[in-house]
């Protein structure tokens, strides 16, 4: 079993994006997602592609790494676009075979949707995961959501849970592999047989994995208590987030991008169905 999870992993670097306030990167990501869905015609898509390229360039993340992350999602991208090819009805029919009708509009639509997904993934993964450490990301989220504390929402607890989850993902993956090897050494077979047989073969992996996860959780809780953890109350932070004027400018750039795309949409040309 291949447990490689390159998509969504932090990629060490020292670009402007790496040094940016994580809160601003989260806001910028949200703005970028909105902007992506505003784009409706070929012109605005051209601008989107350009902005994605600019993002890649300033992040200085090797294209190879981004491509590797995308590869894992090829299926989802292909699936959604192919459905669109068959779904969308238009005026220029290209193929008509029984109940299958393919229109030019459908193909264009599929292409733009594929582009939309790719740009969305590239944009958000560059802004958030590739250039932001998980801990900065959870810190940013905690501080962005801080106003919700007034409503007695457990914002700090939520971000602590995120941090611990992120911390233990690699540990648990390693453990899964160890258990699998141990079971394989005892003659377990995970790769052949029917779907049900394979699912059944997973039970002897999941049981010890869960048991150990619970044991780890208990030990971690004790260790945290011994380090004087009493929840978010009265806790300070080593790294205080500072948003500079550069960060605000960066967010403003996304607002401008959105405005530009709305303008380009008016230029006409082929427009997306939605």
């Amino acid at each position, binding site marked *: 079993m291949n447990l490689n999870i390159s998509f969504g992993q932090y990629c060490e670097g020292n670009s402007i994006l790496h040094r940016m306030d994580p809160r601003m990167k989260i806001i910028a990501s949200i703005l970028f997602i909105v902007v992506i869905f505003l784009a409706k015609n070929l012109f605005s898509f051209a601008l989107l592609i350009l902005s994605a390229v600019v993002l890649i360039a300033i992040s200085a993340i090797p294209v190879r790494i981004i491509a590797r992350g995308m590869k894992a999602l090829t299926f989802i991208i292909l699936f959604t676009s192919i459905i669109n090819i068959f779904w969308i009805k238009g005026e220029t029919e290209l193929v008509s075979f029984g109940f299958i009708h393919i229109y030019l509009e459908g193909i264009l639509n599929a292409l733009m949707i594929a582009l939309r997904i790719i740009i969305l993934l590239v944009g958000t993964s560059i802004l958030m995961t590739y250039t932001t450490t998980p801990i900065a990301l959870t810190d940013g989220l905690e501080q962005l959501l801080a106003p919700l504390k007034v409503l007695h929402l457990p914002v700090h607890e939520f971000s602590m849970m995120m*941090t*611990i989850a992120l911390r233990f993902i690699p*540990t648990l993956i390693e453990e899964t592999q160890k258990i699998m090897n141990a079971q394989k050494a005892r003659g377990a077979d995970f790769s052949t047989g029917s779907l049900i047989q394979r699912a059944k073969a997973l039970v002897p992996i999941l049981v010890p994995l869960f048991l150990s996860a619970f044991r780890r959780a208990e*030990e*971690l809780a004790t260790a945290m208590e*011994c*380090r004087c953890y009493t929840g978010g109350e009265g806790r*300070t932070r080593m*790294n205080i987030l500072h948003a500079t004027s550069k960060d605000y400018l960066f967010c403003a750039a996304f607002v401008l991008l959105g405005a530009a795309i709305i303008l380009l949409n008016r230029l006409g040309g082929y427009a997306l169905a939605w």
Partner: protein
Amino acid sequence: MSETKTPIIEIRDLSFAYPTDDGEAPKNALTNVNLSIEEGSFVSILGHNGSGKSTLAKMMSLILMPDSGSVWIDGKNMSAEDITEEDVLDARRKVGMVFQNPDNQIVATVVEEDVAFGPENLGLPSAEIRRRVDEALEMVGMTKYARHAPHNLSGGQKQRVAIAGIIAMRRRCIIFDESTAMLDPAGRREVMDTIERLNREENITVLHITHYMNEAVRADRVVVMDSGRILLDGTPSEVFSQPETLWNVRLDVPQTTELLYHMKKSGYNVRLDIFDPDECAEEIAAAIRSDRDAD
């Protein structure tokens, strides 16, 4: 002893049994234990599995509460009725604990963030946290890994990060609960060197719970536990010069001691309290030489 300084940890007539399922008679994990840890000392607690040594550690770090008897931290009875959560927190600011499994005590996804976790809980200003984190990482020799992810480190390195996390809280006493048990020999050496340096250079009281003899001999004082009781208590020389007592409770003695013990039994005039292999070799050479001269 004429010194009147309050011991950092004192255990008075402590007994404890883990709760059992219905019908089973509870078996005492600790029975009438008395122990006093002087500030600045380096104490090893030795014992076989089930000897009660880890339970004792949990008592001293206030994870467990005694059934009878009391635990005193820095002159305060932590087993008294009127102990508040504040008092426990206060005691935990003095006594820290490093656990066995390095993976299960690291909270954050970046080394320096994890070291900062404790000081952050204390509510210190961020500049002070930064200073302490840098200092603690320096002390355990992990400065160049400050920005690394903990899961990419070796066991010994992870354990040093965990130690740094405790140092950064400026604890006066650190309990190491079998913190070397899951490490490979290289990792064990790294951690032991760090522990020793903390005691010698930073004057932090160290309580090292272990079942490795060669680690126990590095302490000033060795306490041997067996079935919930203290069996021996003294300097490494005093304790290890009684190999039979240790063998009786299924404990080993350092290899040097074992060798010298057998030499002595065969009639050579050697001391037993030598733990350094080179010194041991010299002692044996001297014994053989004087034996030959006598012939």
